[in-house]
């Protein structure tokens, strides 16, 4: 397979063909459903939610912008099917967080070709923490205070809980999933039948 050098800009945007659109749509639906039903609440407005692994997968396979759109749309859908009202502050926060989580291809973790090393895992974890801090420590509080007059202290505490909760899921569940995915995509040559007793 030919390896092209893509510039970072193209990598951030990703390739928006029909396949990407369908994948982002399915990702958004999964994100929405998991936001509503796939979490354990830990704080007001926050929960340990399995939805967080969706941006990991979409990001790994399609890049940061698809991951971002996926989570932004997914969050709006979650708000509408869950019916608890649209909270743009959290949607924007989730989208920004997803962008940072989805940076995987930019620093060379190419899941589609089975490349995901310990170094990538560390960068990934750092990106998750930073992304969550920016998203929920800066962006969401600004919008919350501006739009809904939320108290900043409370918002920062919520941001802290969200960052901790999300990072926990992103690292504890996300890294094994990335490893599994990378393994699944790894070249499938040299498969030999093995009739030996060595189990």
């Amino acid at each position: 397979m030919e390896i092209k050098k893509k510039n970072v800009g193209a990598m951030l945007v990703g390739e928006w063909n029909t396949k990407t659109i369908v994948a982002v749509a399915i990702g958004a639906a999964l994100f929405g459903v998991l936001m509503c039903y796939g979490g354990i609440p830990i704080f007001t407005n926050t929960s340990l939610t399995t939805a967080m692994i969706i941006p990991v997968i979409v990001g790994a396979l399609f890049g940061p912008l698809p991951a971002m759109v996926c989570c932004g749309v997914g969050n709006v859908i979650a708000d509408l099917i869950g019916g608890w009202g649209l909270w743009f502050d959290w949607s924007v926060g989730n989208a920004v967080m997803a962008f940072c989580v989805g940076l995987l291809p930019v620093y060379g973790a190419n899941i589609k070709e089975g490349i995901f090393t310990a170094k990538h895992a560390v960068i990934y974890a750092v990106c998750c923490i930073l992304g969550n801090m920016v998203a929920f420590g800066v962006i969401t509080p600004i919008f919350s205070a501006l739009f809904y007059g939320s108290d900043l202290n409370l918002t920062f505490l919520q941001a802290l809980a969200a960052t901790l909760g999300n990072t926990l899921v992103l690292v504890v569940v996300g890294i094994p999933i990335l490893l599994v995915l990378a393994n699944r995509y790894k070249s499938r040559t040299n498969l030999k039948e093995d009739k030996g007793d060595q189990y």
Partner: protein
Amino acid sequence: MKEPAIVFKDFSFQYRVQHEPTLHDINLTIYKGEKVLILGSSGSGKSTLANCINGLIPFSHHGTMTGSVTVMGQETRESSIYGLSKTVGTVLQDSDAQFVGLSVAEDIAFAMENEAKPRREMVPIVEEHAATVGMSDFLGAVPFNLSGGQKQKVAIAGVLGSNVNILIFDEPLAALDPQMGNTAVELIDDLARDKERTIIIIEHRLEDVLHRNVDRIVLMADGRIAADMTPDELLKSDLLQKHGIREPLYVTAMKYAGCELEGTENLGDINTIRFTDEAKGKLMRFFTEESEPMPENTADEVVGFDHVTYEYDAGKPVVRDASFSIKRGERIAVIGKNGAGKSTAAKLICGVARPKSGTVRIDGQDAKSLSIKEIGERVGYVMQNPNQMIIKDTIKKEVEYALTIREMPQDTIREKATAALNACSLYSMRNWPVDTVSYGQKKRITVASILVLEPDVLILDEPSAGQDYKSYTEIMKFINVLNREYGKTILFITHDMHLALENTERAIVFSDGEVIADDKVFAVLANDDIISRANLKQTSLYTLAKHLCLEPEQVTRRFIAHEREASKA
């Protein structure tokens, strides 16, 4: 002079990711107004051939093409996927995936939306196409309230553009139950009446397609055209067996009876078939021979239903007052059309659903006192789609999974997993990643991952769905070994009459939640009343019996008995 619609000339194609070409030296001309069946097992290249016509090759799947393909005189590589979509309409195998709109009308309009046609022009066209496929009354319906057959009709309406004169049906029968399959074949035939239209059907289920006549059959094998002839000629040849295609049941019956196929007229159509006197005599002799009666099963009961009723929504029972008893070591077909309650019955056995009234017995014990997990150790349930079951990344880990979560000691896990892997002939592949194996092998993995728990009863949900004859026979052979050698009780949930006929002794028929028959499989399949009430399809043995003026039950019984003797030998 016939006008050619599609011409392949010295054509070969190789996918970029593969080492060998998928299509070799294809020379094929399909004329305007023809109805052609492209037949072949999976991996024969039949879908690739279709994708070369609609432009998915080379525009969406990349690879190397040599030679030429022209569609209505236009070289495809010089056109585009969109340009071709104006003349070629493709109905994909998975009609659920093809349904991208949120309602029937929107999905029919999808192609016009993409052309940015104003809405007021779309409305009459949508109505016209919906009427063509008989979906006028469902324009506002949402996809998840439609049956597979209805979704497929919508898919057809969605590709009927104004200039679409070539229609490709990629495995149109795969997701349909028998009755709907018949309707689909009839609808395709009605569309073929219009002599401007060229119809290409891609299938491996020959007998079901031959429910209505086709002009020509192109048989594909290993990327080459193995035959290009009329149905009658093909059925008389030995090519079907050679290339792993199931021949129609009545043809098998004729062979069992020792008939010469050569002189038979209209061999491709059971309704108008004309036997020679000699063949008729042989058939009469074969079917009137007495066969050994099937042994009665006198073992004790493993699963029992006693007046079981279950409902999802109050007042609308999905299973109503069902009673039956399954004995150890039996092979049973639970049949009925989609939504008749057969899957719910399976859920009731597994304890995922609990009866509203009545009792489910497992090993003589009321299932009420057993947890899902406990029932899982006695009854194993294999889902239809193996992709929905596989969790781990290698075969070995997947098979060990149920044991690992029970925290068994390592030695025990190893011993049990080895036994299950061997039973499913997967031992030599145990360290392979699950993604590298075929659909049929994945199915075997899911069976193995259930077998490690050593359940007495195995429930298999639609084991034949989505598989060609070869991998189907492979799986059935293996299931039958489990039954014969390990004494497992097998329950097939299916609407495949062939499967029931060949692999089970008894059939329980569901219709609208009720058990309407529970009898020997040949008695059920020969009973016209039950078959039509359950919305199923007669096998061609039934029609054959009518031709010979024999009792269908007797014909079916003799056929099964002969088949079982043959498989024993």
